């Protein structure tokens, strides 16, 4: 399967679904990096560069949507979710407007640019805003489906996209049964423990499950592509059926996927848990693959944490 970054899949999806004349796309001097340039080439009259002014861009997007448009606003995650946070909150989410904030270069896999550009807080921040839906697709195919779902569902969305090319999980054109907002996909069955992952940690978690298989641990893997609304049913089922959950995200362990899953489990069926992610620290410069190693986010690292968590479950069962 060909590798592709979710940001590129986003740009392609904009072109594919962008025939609709009500779709407009905004960017803040990063259209080559966010891939909205693909849409710009196809539909130049509906692509607007707003310059390096993210706060203005978000409120402009809000105003446009009041005129009946479906508005995509793109920049790097750090600037979308943090520089322009209050605009996203007050201009877009409070009036419940039809703006899709599609933020690329999330997480530490941004690589060489370093901590100033590695957003590891956006899931937590965006999830806390009423009316906002938060999607974090793992591969090109699910990104395409996520963009289609965002277009079909009125209201604000935050879609978290990556810079790094990633292996396909779902095949080049996954069918629509594989993506429902708020519904986790079970991509590997297992009975001993459940790994709940999001974004490019899904691929790493599948790798971890393979390593664990050799050690006799049968791990289930869920792709939690929707962080909000979180799939409480899937979490409860994982808790009941496997008795232990490990969450894996390329994000701070505070308030993101791990937080959302822990909340869902706590209010349904609590179980042994471990959150794998950035341990309340900023990232650094380096090759993405090297950084994933440094911060314990490779398949091997995940497998170690899952094994430890499984051991905790077994010792409690005694």
């Amino acid at each position, binding site marked *: 399967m060909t590798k592709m970054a979710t940001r590129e899949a986003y740009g392609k999806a904009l072109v594919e679904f962008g025939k609709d004349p009500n779709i*407009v796309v905004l960017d803040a001097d990063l259209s080559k990096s966010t891939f909205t340039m693909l849409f710009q080439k196809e539909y130049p*009259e*509906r692509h*607007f560069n*707003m*310059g390096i*002014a993210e*706060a*203005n861009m*978000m*409120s*402009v*997007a*809000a*105003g*446009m*949507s*009041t*005129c*009946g*448009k479906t*508005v995509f606003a793109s920049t790097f995650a750090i600037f979308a979710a943090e520089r322009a946070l*209050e*605009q996203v909150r*007050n*201009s877009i989410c*409070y*009036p*419940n407007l039809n703006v899709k904030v599609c933020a690329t270069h999330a997480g530490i896999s941004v690589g060489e640019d370093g901590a100033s550009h590695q957003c590891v807080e956006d899931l937590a921040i965006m999830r806390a805003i009423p009316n906002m839906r938060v999607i974090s697709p793992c591969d090109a195919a699910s990104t395409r489906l996520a963009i289609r779902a965002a277009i079909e569902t009125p209201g604000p969305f935050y879609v978290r996209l990556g810079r790094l090319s990633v292996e396909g999980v779902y095949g080049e054109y996954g069918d629509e049964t594989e993506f429902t907002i708020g519904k986790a996909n079970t991509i590997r069955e297992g009975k001993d423990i459940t790994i709940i992952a999001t974004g490019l940690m899904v691929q790493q978690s599948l790798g971890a499950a393979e390593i664990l298989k050799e050690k006799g641990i049968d791990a289930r893997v869920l792709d939690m592509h929707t962080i909000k609304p979180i799939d409480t049913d899937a979490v409860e089922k994982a808790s009941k059926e496997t008795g232990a959950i490990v969450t894996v995200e390329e994000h701070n362990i505070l308030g993101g996927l791990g937080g959302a899953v822990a909340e869902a489990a706590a209010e349904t069926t609590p179980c042994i848990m471990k959150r794998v992610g950035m341990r309340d620290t900023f990232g650094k410069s380096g090759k993405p693959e090297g950084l994933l190693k440094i911060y314990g986010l490779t398949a091997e690292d995940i497998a170690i944490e899952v094994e430890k968590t499984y051991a905790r479950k077994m010792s409690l069962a005694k």
Partner: protein
Amino acid sequence: MDNSKEKKLKLFAANVRKLVIEAVYSAQSGHPGGSLSSADIFSYLYGDKLRVDPLNPEDPKRDRFVLSKGHCAPGLYAALSHRGFFDTCKIKEFRQCGSMLQGHPCRACVPGVDMSTGSLGQGISAAVGMAMMGKLDGASYRVYALMGDGELQEGQVWEAQMSAAHYKLDNLTAFIDFNGLQIDGKTDDVMSLGSIEAKTRAFGWHTIMIDGHDFSQIEAAVEEAEKTKGQPTMIVAKTHKGKGVSFMEDQAGWHGKAPNQEQYEMAMAELDAALAALEVEA
């Protein structure tokens, strides 16, 4: 402007001012100063200029108005209700639990409110977005926005101005309520604005300085904006904060304070007298 139109607008404004005081007094909370300084601008727009229909507030062809200085919601609500978007008796419910009249404008709550605002600096950007879509769709509607002078201290306002000039939004007209005051005192003491006129001009806007309490000047400026091609227009309206209630005039202290009963009665007596004088003239 002919006499009868001016009379009509003065009556509209006198009613708006009374409703502002009613709202803030009933709520014992809210912002009278800036609502009163903008009352004549609200009245010109809702009493005459805007092509809006209280029976069809969502009409896609309507002119838009964004109150970027959202704290002056009492002025906007007064104008909307006086224009017939909702019953004026609702004004007494301003800021109360269960009321549609939120402390700051909420577009999902109140018919005729085009954008939710309250966080200074954001409304002007939303107005830019509306004007851009008017251009894209080849629509004939015009977009109006109203900012405070203190609000100009927000960086986003300048981002918005840059983008409006870049996209040549000649369908966008913005007002600055240049009353010289903000919460902590004079704008020039809190954070000097320098020459607003020179700044907005340098940002690519056609800029007009007027007396914001003179309807002929407001109208002339708005009509000049309509004729201006290839750039947005900024109308810098010199005003008096608290205009119409003498003890509130030019006082920073009346920015966000409600009158007590005695002050309410004094304010209403003055506004009623002004209204009666206008009615006698008519």
